[in-house]
Structures are given as structure tokens and as C-alpha cells.
């Protein structure tokens, strides 16, 4: 199955799931970073013009540092440059840990090769050829670019007197019932009724009544009698 989810087993025996970011998101993040860098360059060029030779030196050195090390600075602190943060992605190691200095430096120095022949041609090829959307710098450094996921705030189960569901439900079906109940807070009442009607054979009810009955089943599954 085509999926961008990668899991890594931690030393505690848990599988952590990460969703890998593809070329389009990363391109947008790069474009935003590029705009930010262009703005910084513009500001520097204008201000340093007043300082003659010393100003030019500061400008040249700053341009050099920004060009090569702007991503490193942000990645080591938070894992994401401003562009990446705006697009909701970040850089991590293959095993989910935050990037270290050496990994960040490697991936950003090899960026020079990714940028060839123009505008990340080789980098794009590498990303498309690799299972994990790694460009050449990611391959050398052992890093991944993953989505920063925060789960939505948990809603409490809608209260209802618990009623045991009829018959024996498989575990997956019980889970689906619980999931439905937890989701009704973000669904419209019509949509909830529409979904509940699918189980009208189970509940023997229609519309909003069916929804209430399903809540009752879910409460039974969640807390017993």
C-alpha cells in the first residue's frame, strides 16, 4: 500500500509513527526561506553600503554565512527553519530523534550538490527515487523531513446512559463505535445522523435517535454499566 507513514521501534518497544513530507511541501518551505533570505540580503546591502570597505566585508561574510548556515542554525535548535515551520514540517533523524549538529551540517553542505543542475534538480530526482523522500543531503546525514503532527484536542464522549450493544461485536467494530462517538462533536448533526443510519440494523432507530443509541453503546464500551 502506498503510504508516507514510517514507523520506528524505540528502545522501550513502542512503534513511533512519522509521516514523511514530500517534495511539494519542502519546495514551498524552501521558497518561503528563500524569500526571508532575500529580504535579509536586501536589508544588509542597503545598510552596509554606508560603511565602505568594512561594510562590504561584513556583508560578504554575512551572505556567506547565511547562504550556507542559515538552515543549520534553525534546525539544531528546533528542527525547522521558519519556512518549514510555516509549512508544518521538521527535520529529524531516521529514528525520530532531533537533528544533531553534525547531521544538520552534513545535510546542508551537501545541499550544494542537491541544487545542481539548477533549482534542486538532483535533489528532486533523489527524493523521487528514494522511499523516504530523502534528497542527497538527507541520505548522507541520515535525516528525514516529517510532518509535525499535533493531535486535535480530545473531546469527551457525549454522555448517555450505557446500553450494551446487541450481539457480539468484533474488537475493531467496537473501536469504530468509540471513534464515531468521539467524532460527533466535530460533525454536523445531519452528518452524524447520516453515518448512524448505516448502522440502523444494529440500533433499530433512524436519524438523531440512532445517534443517541450509538452514544449509549459507546458509553457502555468505554465504562461498563
Amino acid at each position, binding site marked *: 500500500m502506498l503510504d508516507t507513514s514510517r514507523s520506528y521501534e524505540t528502545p522501550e518497544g513502542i512503534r513511533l509513527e512519522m509521516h514523511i513530507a514530500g517534495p511539494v511541501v519542502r519546495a514551498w518551505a524552501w521558497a518561503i526561506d528563500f524569500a526571508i533570505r532575500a529580504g535579509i540580503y536586501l536589508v544588509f546591502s542597503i545598510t552596509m553600503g554606508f560603511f565602505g570597505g568594512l561594510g*562590504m566585508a561584513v556583508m*560578504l561574510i554575512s*551572505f*556567506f554565512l547565511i547562504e550556507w548556515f542559515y538552515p543549520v542554525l534553525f534546525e539544531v535548535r528546533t528542527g525547522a527553519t521558519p519556512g518549514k515551520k510555516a509549512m508544518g514540517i521538521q527535520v529529524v533523524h531516521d529514528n*525520530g530523534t*532531533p537533528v544533531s549538529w553534525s547531521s544538520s551540517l552534513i545535510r546542508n*553542505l551537501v545541499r550544494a550538490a542537491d541544487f545542481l543542475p539548477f533549482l534542486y534538480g538532483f535533489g528532486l530526482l533523489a527524493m523521487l527515487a528514494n522511499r523516504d523522500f530523502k534528497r542527497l543531503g538527507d541520505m548522507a546525514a541520515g535525516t528525514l523531513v516529517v510532518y509535525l503532527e499535533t*493531535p486535535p484536542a480530545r473531546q469527551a464522549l457525549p454522555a448517555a446512559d450505557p446500553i450494551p450493544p446487541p450481539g457480539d461485536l468484533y474488537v475493531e467494530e467496537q473501536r469504530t463505535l*468509540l471513534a464515531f462517538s468521539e467524532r460527533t462533536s466535530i460533525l454536523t448533526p445531519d452528518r452524524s445522523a447520516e453515518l448512524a443510519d448505516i448502522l440502523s440494523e444494529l440500533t433499530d432507530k433512524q436519524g438523531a435517535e440512532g445517534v443517541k443509541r450509538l452514544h449509549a453503546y459507546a458509553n457502555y464500551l468505554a465504562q461498563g454499566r
Partner: protein
Amino acid sequence: MRQLGFEDQNRPQWDELKALLGDLERPRRKRSLAAENLGHLPRLYRQVCNHYALARSRRYSPALEAELHDLVLRGHRCLYRQGGASLWRLITFITTGFPRTLRRNARYFWLASALFLVPALLVGGYCYSKPELIYSVLDEEQVSDVEGMYDPLNRKPGRSPERGSETDFMMFGYYIANNIGIGFRTFAGGVLFGVGTVLLLLFNGVVLGGIAGHLTRLGYHETFWPFVSGHGALELTAIVICGAAGLMLAHAILAPGQLTRLEALRKKAADALELVLGAALMLLMAAFIEAFWSSSGVPTGAKYSIAALLWLLVIAYLVFAGALRRGSR
């Protein structure tokens, strides 16, 4: 146990872990919890890992599983973060780490120096003997630029006569941006199966050798050689080291041995990075010398002596630094 009972029982621990993680994820100076509280992290993290595994195996609702997965993920990130760079690591890197890594990977250094020196000497020799060969290496405008820079009548050898108002500082900035950029690109080119690195080394060798041969033939040796001798020790060695680092990457990709290419590349890249960073520091010093010393009016005898001293220092550093304490890496 039912889901709600499970949640009620364990929610205090989840809230505590959430508070701890929220605090740890802030920058260091904005943290508010005391150290003893933070010491609870490993135990709490392992307990919540256990809860997450239970929630999954008991098929509790997806929302609960997602909430616990988020806690576990954040805990994993906080707990398994790698140590930050510190001043001490920088010092040990400069004094022992970098020379040792270079000596460990000496064969790439020799290969890179051959790729650089052999074309340089060959083309230099040809340009010295035949006047028209330089135009196969550079075009007419570049040749006249170079001749202008090293003309004995030029007040500041090594700088173009038209841009006379440049200060030493500006050239310092220019040399940093230009030379270190070339070094980094030579390194990065290694990942393209070595093609980039080899081409850059050959190209730089050919151009520098050609210029050297041509200018010596013209009789500019009073301006050219004193100029380049000062920073040459650092700059040429550093470019070759960057080439060596690129060749390490290339070797990992082309001949990974028993590992997959990705694994081999990752392993070699860590060492190669050390070489590049050390070379970048050398290029920084070379830029300093090139900007403030090489073009100055100091008599050529002094320039040659300093150059000889620098060569000795560079060779001694790379050969002997960190060689004493064996087995303490």
C-alpha cells in the same frame, strides 16, 4: 479494564508528563520547573509508553491512542536528544580530532592531492614553455585580468588595478565567501559519484597551474610567487582536504563493501564532515593572510620566510597533532 476507568486511573501521570514536556520544549532560559521535577521524566515516559502499548492492544478509541502517541513521541524526542556542541568539543576538534581524522583517511588525501597537483604541474609546465597554451585554459579577458593583477607596476599585487579602492577588509570578506564556498562545493560534489569533486579538483589544478606557469614565463615572479606563497600553505592544503572529504563520500557510494550504499554513505559522511570543517577553518585563516599580508608591501624575503614557516607549521600540525595519546579517541 474499560477505557474510561483506564483514563481516570492514569490521567494524573499523563498530565504530569504533558507539563514536563511543555516545560522542556521551551528554550533553556524560559524553563520554570525545578530540576527534581524534570528528573521524573524517564520514569514517567516509560510508564506512558506502557499505557500506550496497553491502549493499542486493548483497542481503545483512536483519539486516546493518538493522544498517548503524541506524548510518547514528544517524550522520545526530549529524552533521546543528542548532546549539543560546546566550546570544549570545538577545542578538542581543532587540537586532536581533525588531524587524527585526516591521518585515518590519509589515502583519500593523497589521491586528492594527486588529482590536484598532477594537472597543475603538467599544465603549468606547458604554459611556461608555450605562450599560447594559457588561452586554452582561460579566455582572453581573464588572462589579461590576471596579468593586470600581478603586473610588477601594480601597487597592490594580487588585486585588480581597476578596483583600486578595495580595502583589505573587503577582500577578506570576498576570499572567505569565495574560497570556503569552493571548498564546500568540492565536498558536496562527492555525493554525485565523485564526479563533482574530481572535476573541481582537476579544474582548480589546471587553472592555478596554468596561471602560475604563464605568469612565471612573463617574468612576474617577483609579484606572483611572494603573493601566493603566504596563504598557499593553508589554502592549497585545505582545498585538497575538501577534495579528500568529497572522495570519501564518493567511495562510500561507489564501493560500499558489505553495507548498503546509504549505510556506507552515512558512516563515511561523519568523518568527511570533520575534514570539511577543519579545512574551512584553514581557509578562514588563509583568507585572513591573503587579505592582510599577501598583498602588503613587506619585502619578498620576509614573505618567503613566513611562507616556509607556515608550510612547516601546517605539515607539523597535520602529521603530529594528537598523535601522542593513543587509544584515547
